[in-house]
């Protein structure tokens, strides 16, 4: 079981959260959409598994490197 912590690639605002804690996720599935420099960045799962935690909600601002979600798989 490897734990993947998905981090924000840029400072910005979370527009949408697709992932839900406790649900299964496949590699490449969308976790959330981050808006930075007026651009929408789709954040996708680096690996398949189960989402064990989602640390962000829509409207929240994040710094680069902040954890967005944790995937165990």
């Amino acid at each position, binding site marked *: 079981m490897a734990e993947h912590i998905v*981090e924000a690639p*840029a400072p910005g605002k979370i527009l949408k959260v697709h992932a839900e804690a406790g649900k299964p996720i496949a590699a490449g599935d969308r976790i959330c959409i981050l808006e930075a*420099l*007026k*651009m929408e960045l789709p954040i996708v799962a680096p690996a398949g598994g189960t989402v064990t935690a989602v640390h962000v909600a829509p409207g929240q601002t994040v710094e*680069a490197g902040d954890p967005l979600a944790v995937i165990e798989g």
Partner: protein
Amino acid sequence: MLEREFLGILALTWQAAVMLGLGGLLIYLGIAKQVEPVLLVPIGTGIILANIPLGGLTDAGGFLAVLRTAGIDTELFPLLIFIGVGAMIDFGSLLERPYTVFLGAAAQFGIFGTFFVAYFLGEGGLRLFDFSFKDAVSIGIIGSADGPTSIYVATILRSKYAASIVVAAYSYMALVPIIQPPIMRALTTDSERRLVMPARAPKVSRRTRVLFPIVTILVVGLIAPKATPLIGTLMFGNLLRESGVLERLSQAAQNEMANIVTILLGLTVGGMMAAADFLRAETLMIYVMGVVAFAVGTAAGVLFGKVMYVASGRKVNPLIGAAGISAFPMSARVVQKVGLEANPHNHLLMHAAGANTAGQIASVVAGGAALALVPFFA
């Protein structure tokens, strides 16, 4: 004879009609296609106003002529715009990644490449076009992808193509998402494009952010004094932003002032495009060389990115070099898109923004350097 004085349509030449069509086209592109509407709509309207026969807007004392004398011939408008631009730019992405400064510098190569081509086609070689040495320098500055710097340099050098140069510089800025990607893909391998760069960067302190604009004015000013008006206004705007105590002024510079000057600048630049000056082979050539300038700048940035890729032990994605041209934030967005295409986990946006803001400073320095060097050659 009396009708000729009153009925503009009788005085309409085909050249003026073409210009009216061109003005209409720019307005159409701006509104219907949303291509840089903030610039193209005022410019398009200015072209129409200037080319209506007997309208008198560009005659001595006319509305557009007054604006031109007050704002362009004095270099005032581009400098005022720069205060707004400085207040809009967050140099944090550059300060957190100081190495991107080299990419900003490398991408300015488009300026020199284009200058040599223009000079060679003009009085420096083939004499196919009426390009003097100073015209060639002004045309080269299109490669900085920096509208205000282009206006500033072309005006100071008294280039007769100032209006075309400015319109070319601004229209290519809108075409960045079309011009850049093919060059970026051609010059990089898939594995280079896939390279993910770390999201985290060391944070810069508030003191650094406040000192940065002041130090930049001093360093750039003392090395390239001719760039002082440009770097001085840009960094003054940035100081308003970063000081933390001038929020009102920073907002005014970014919004009210930038917007008002953009309206005046757009109309005036459009108003400089009278048929007689615009409809000639040289204008077409300036547009062709504008593409060359953007392409060479992009290529130079990406190639230098490849050098850094190797030198850093594969830690720098060469794509971010393309953002070294100062079209901010367009080319940072282009880099993000091309990187994401290659690898869905690859978010290069902030790294590209670093190179992009570095490019903004580098283009000002390059403009200043060009102004300083011209007297030795011309």
